[in-house]
């Protein structure tokens, strides 16, 4: 069953076209990855799904319901969430406040104490630092807050935009572990990454993007085997 169905979407920033009619889908419980070089349009794709970047054409459906054109706060209310690139935390708020904003929606507000407990059990380090402001955390801890904040929304689909960006290797590993753990728990995951090896290893299915277009797809194994894709887009 397709949870997320993206059909032929195009996005323009003024005169600049960022996406040129791309289509793909994510099935329930899958971990799907989108890879490609800087500036290929991966972040724009994520933004357009959550309603942060308006579509010039095309359509996005979530559980067979058209969501393109809805404002972001309505989209996330349906159960899609994004862990944005560079974390985008509320820098001057404490860790706990950051997490609580995640439970802003009516849908999640009532059981927020419970969800918070769950998040803290997932990231015990955050509980230790609950009263520190987000800006004082290390990059890895910030990433945990960003993921925790997304989990507070009780999502069905969680999208990650370069979660390993700028993290130390150990930390990268930890982030990938968390992603896999969430996947095991049954969450549908859409992952955008530059850390190609790790990504191909964990993903059920991958799309390769270049210059606003999808130029290849397949399972991790298939892509790793595809010399031309390796050569041209993965850079090794």
């Amino acid at each position, binding site marked *: 069953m397709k949870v997320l169905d993206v059909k032929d979407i195009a996005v323009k920033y*003024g*005169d*600049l*076209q960022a996406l040129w009619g791309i289509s793909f889908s994510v099935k329930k419980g899958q971990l799907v990855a989108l890879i490609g*070089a*800087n*500036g*290929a349009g991966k972040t724009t794709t994520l933004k357009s799904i959550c309603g942060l970047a308006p579509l010039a054409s095309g359509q996005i459906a979530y559980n067979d319901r058209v969501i393109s054109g809805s404002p972001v706060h309505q989209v996330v209310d349906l159960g899609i969430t994004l862990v944005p690139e560079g974390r985008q935390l509320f820098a001057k708020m404490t860790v706990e406040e950051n997490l609580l904003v995640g439970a802003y929606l009516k849908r999640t507000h009532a059981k927020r104490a419970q969800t918070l407990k769950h998040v803290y059990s997932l990231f015990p380090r955050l509980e230790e630092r609950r009263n520190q402001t987000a800006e004082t955390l290390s*990059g890895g801890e910030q990433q945990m807050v960003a993921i925790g904040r997304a989990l507070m929304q009780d999502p069905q689909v969680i999208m990650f935009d*370069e979660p390993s*960006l*700028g*993290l*130390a*290797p150990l930390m*990268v*590993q930890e982030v990938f572990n968390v992603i896999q753990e969430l996947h095991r728990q049954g969450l549908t995951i859409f992952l955008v990454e*530059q*850390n*190609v*090896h*790790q990504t191909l*290893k964990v993903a059920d299915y991958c799309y390769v993007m*270049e*210059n606003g277009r999808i130029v290849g797809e397949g399972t991790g194994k298939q892509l790793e085997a595809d010399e031309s894709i390796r*050569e*041209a887009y993965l*850079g*090794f």
Partner: protein
Amino acid sequence: MPEPILKVDSVTKCFGGLTAVNNVSFQVQPGEIVGLLGPNGAGKTTLFNVISGYYAPTSGSITFKGQDISGKQPYTLATHGIGRTFQVVKPFAGLSVLENVVIASFLRYPKRADAERHAWQILESTGLADRANLSAASLTLAGRKRLEIGKALALEPSFLLLDEVVAGLNPTEADRTVELILQLKQQGMTILIVEHIMRVIMNISDRLVVLNFGEKIAEGAAAEVAKNPLVIEAYLGEAAA
């Protein structure tokens, strides 16, 4: 060994508690293309900003053509002959493509007519002449990156800092830009380049300097560096190691 054109000597740059660049040293010889590598967030752009005068180094020094330039303002460095491009290209959006370049040409040609003539030459050589009178905001990403190089070239620099001028371009466009860079090298330009696309940087660089977490982890010829396990780990993730 000839006198290096640029000498980065144990440069450290801290922001509050965060050390973005930590005790980095390297040299660039005249006529060389040196690639600066490192994963996202490794401190490449910060180092660029320190070299081009946007940040003063917290400690260490930078010597350009034998002169200590650490802490000097970017506009002073431009007159010394350092040109740079920005990773996030921001042309002067309200102005035309020609005007964008003319502004840079003023540095060497203070008269408007001369500057315009010079700017036209730059536009010809960067393949933007046919779009000279369009507003810079209307250019495509490739066009903007090209304009960014054009502006830096209009300063008639002896040393160029290129920050991701290829990233985001399609293969044809990327090839054209690489061609342009190689052409510049032939003309005797010294270049320090940051680039993500390996295939590009491996091809054009004489030497590579690799950063990770603000520290230099490797330096040397491309083939050598590519075999360095530290680099592979930093760059491709541990799986490749």
